[in-house]
Every structure is written in C-alpha cells, then in structure tokens.
C-alpha cells in the first residue's frame, strides 16, 4: 500500500529529527512518495477497509468460539481488542478524509 502520508510520518518519527521536524527529511519523503504513487486513493481505502473487515470478522468468530468454550477468555479479549483498535483507527481516518472533502467543497471558486 503506497500512500504519500507514510514517508512523511516516518520522517517525523525518525530519531535524527528528535528535536523537531527536519524539513529536508520531510521534503525528500514527500518527493519519494509522490514519485512512486501508482495506487489511487479509492483503491487504498478499499484495501484498508477490507483488512479492517477481516480483523472484525476474526474477532466475531473467536467470540463465538469463546461462547462455545473452544477459545479461552484471553484469546477472545485479544481478538476483540484488535478489532476495536482497527475499527477506531479506520473511523478516525474516515473522519479525516470526509473532513478533507468537506474542506474542498467549501473552497471559494
């Protein structure tokens, strides 16, 4: 999955820029990201949501196994927590994307 955000995020996280965001690192990261952009935005979103759906489905099946007594309480909690985090992340990203589109639509022409 190639998204232009990740390179800049790793640049922010890298230890060389501990005191603040090193602009040159961010710039090269952005250039590298845009150079290799081959996947469009909707494909990326589809991949993201299908992965999230897989995690949630797994949590459901483990929960059912837990009710049947074939999975331990720890396994159920672990799977449900993974689903919870994936869902929270997906919702947060979706909200950001929707907010960005709204921002675009409000632009003065």
């Amino acid at each position, binding site marked *: 999955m190639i998204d232009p955000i990740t390179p800049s995020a790793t640049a922010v996280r890298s230890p060389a820029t501990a005191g603040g965001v090193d602009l040159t690192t961010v710039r090269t990261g952005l250039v590298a990201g845009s150079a290799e952009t081959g996947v469009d935005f909707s494909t990326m979103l589809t991949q993201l949501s299908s992965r999230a759906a897989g995690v949630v489905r797994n949590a459901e099946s483990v929960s059912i196994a837990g009710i049947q007594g074939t999975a*331990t309480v*720890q*396994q159920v*909690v*672990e799977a449900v*927590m*993974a689903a919870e*985090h994936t869902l*929270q*992340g997906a919702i*947060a*990203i979706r*909200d*950001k994307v929707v907010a960005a589109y709204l921002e675009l639509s409000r632009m003065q022409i």
Partner: protein
Amino acid sequence: MLDPLQATLRVGASGLEAQSRRLRVIAENMANAHSTGRTPGADPYARRVITFESQLDEAANANIVRVVSIEQPRTTFRVEHMPGHPAADANGYVRLPNVDLVVEAADMREANRSYEANLQAIRQAREMITMTLDLLRTT
C-alpha cells in the same frame, strides 16, 4: 505485525495464558493433596510443576512465553500410619502425595501477581494506542 504496541498486546496475552495454565496446575495439586492410591503400596498423586520458556513469535516479531512441560519432580511422598486404609502396605503405612499446601498457596499468589502484571502491560499498551489515535480525532 510491525507495530510494537500490537506486539505488546500479543506478548501480554501469551503471559495471561501461561499464568492461567499455571493456576490450573496449582489447583490440580491442591485438589489432589489427599489423593492416595487404591491398592496396597500404590503410588499416590504426584505433585506437578509447570515450566515456561521464551519463544520468538514470528507474526508479532517478539518473544512470547509458552508452556514447555508439566512435570512431576522426584520428591519423596509423605508416609502416614493408617492401618485399614485401602492403600496401606503390610506395616500399615500409607503413602500420601508430596503436595505442600503452603507451597501451593505461595505459588498461587505468585501466579496471581504475574497475571496482574501482564494485564497491566496490556492495559498500558491499549491506552497508548488509544492516545495516539486520539491525535487524529481532536485536531
């Protein structure tokens, strides 16, 4: 799984599972503290000890804990003079399990504390994940 926080959840879950299996073994020992044999001179219940080892989890890329074995250590059985007991030998002595309830109680307390520690690690990792996701929400 490259996310270290997700890996922390996985490691913590393995710790929870290991400690719950340890508690099961302790419960077995305590429940069978007076289980004798049925025939004269027969062996009574032998105390069991659980051992753990560290193992690299490929998916999480972290060291999880796993149960290696549940063994019976070679310690001598207690002997009590109880003539008439089905398991009494020719001199009236019955062999009793080598389970010391005080040792088991201390072991159980340790398993409980370890379980709590693993839960705390999971709770902490979960809180850190949520805190990081909150960055997306509030700004």
